[in-house]
């Protein structure tokens, strides 16, 4: 658009006028789209998925390069203090072995008890395995891009975890890639409990890579530094007993935890089916879907 009055030419004046109209139309269309995508995000599922597919070759390819370079550097770093590391690892291994024997015994006992109680055992099956290849690094929201999509069976709403812990849940799915709402996003609220004593808590992201944990019952602050937070399975979306984070700082009525599965460091992510699909379906039909 030009500035001021473009002279006496009627044609130029009309041109200017119509470009103003076009811009205002652009603003209105944008606002309508924005409202729609906030109120009914599922409307744009297909478009967003297609965009993910367009960028996924770039993201995936470059990710391989950076992973290789990073691997070279950390590899070199590991050689640097190999002796110290070796001694430390040996000590850790001894401790681990002892814990493992204990755990095995508990596992067996658990199985027997469950058999006695006739408890329904949930199949833990894997839908797809992908890599975390990108993130929303220029937004206040915390999303990650996963290199697995609908062609692998991934659907919107499925929980994503790594061997270390919970990563989040799928919110956009393309054919080749999908977008994950990380547990550190403010809109991701995970029903959880303390591993130490089973006190039910609520984990909510803080938007800066950490998680806010609060006890369900108001009162004494139940957290200690180093506490592990695990999912409780309440709500039916996330499977129970998946570690979420470790408490690093206490505040007035809760604590701040660091996610155990750091999206930047995990080698692969596992997409699992929703824990109780029926319960999730009932919940997602409610309008309070995070987007």
């Amino acid at each position, binding site marked *: 658009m030009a500035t001021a009055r473009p002279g006496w030419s009627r044609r130029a004046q009309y041109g200017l006028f119509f*470009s103003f109209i076009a811009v205002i139309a652009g603003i209105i269309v*944008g606002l309508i789209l924005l409202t729609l995508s906030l109120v009914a995000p599922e409307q744009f599922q297909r478009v967003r998925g297609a965009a993910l597919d367009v960028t996924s070759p770039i993201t995936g390819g470059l990710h391989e390069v950076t992973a290789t370079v990073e691997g070279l550097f950390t590899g070199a770093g590991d050689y640097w203090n190999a002796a110290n590391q070796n001694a430390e690892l040996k000590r850790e291994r001894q401790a681990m072995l002892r814990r493992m024997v204990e755990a095995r015994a508990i596992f067996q006992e658990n199985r027997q008890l469950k058999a006695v109680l006739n408890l329904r055992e949930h199949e833990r099956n894997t839908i797809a395995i992908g890599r975390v290849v990108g993130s929303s690094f220029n937004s206040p929201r915390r999303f990650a891009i996963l290199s697995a999509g609908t062609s692998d069976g991934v659907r919107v709403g499925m929980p994503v975890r790594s061997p270390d812990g919970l990563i989040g849940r799928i919110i956009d799915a393309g054919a080749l890639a999908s*977008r994950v709402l990380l547990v550190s996003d403010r809109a991701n609220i995970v029903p959880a409990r303390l591993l130490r004593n089973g006190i039910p808590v609520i984990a909510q992201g803080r938007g800066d890579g950490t998680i806010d944990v609060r006890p369900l019952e108001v009162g004494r602050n139940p957290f200690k530094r180093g506490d592990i937070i695990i999912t409780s399975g309440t709500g039916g979306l996330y499977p129970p007993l998946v570690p979420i984070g470790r408490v690093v700082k206490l505040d007035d009525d809760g604590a701040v935890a660091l996610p155990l599965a750091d999206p930047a460091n995990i080698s692969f992510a596992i997409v699992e089916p929703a824990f109780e699909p029926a319960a999730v379906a009932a919940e997602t039909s409610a309008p309070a879907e995070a987007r």
Partner: protein
Amino acid sequence: MVRAALTPTRRIGQAPWRYAAYVPAVTVVLAALLSALPIISTSGWYPDFGYLVFIGWRLLRADPWPAWWAAPLGFVNDLFTGYPLGFSVALWSATMLALDLIDRRTMWRDYRTEWVLAGVLIAIDEWMQWRIAKLVDGAPPLAQMAPPLVISICVFPLFAWIISRIDAWRLGR
């Protein structure tokens, strides 16, 4: 001496590139595509590259693209960055309109006023992102938006410089 100064520095055959008119829009799309970089950050402090390049072009020239292109360009940015669809469409169109109105008022501009103007626009962009995130209960405390804002404002001159180089190249200067 005088003779040397009078000889034209322009060489024959030097002219704007054939597709010069499309270069600005293409650079904006490429900047939006930077969101596909495999950077895995849990802080979100990186600038909104698409918007920086967009206002960089618009501040350099009054007509880098027809005004209505702001909407489709914003749509592309929304798709690649994962912002709610329509956010950049509305914001970028509004930016075109606002800068046109400002152009009518200002008598002259210099480097510093442009930077201040860009800073204000970037601040509006960041604040809007925060506001939209708040609508879906996904917003961090407002103080957390300060680092990305400062970073964006600080890197804007770099983007403006790159854009001016691209502009000189596309026009064959």
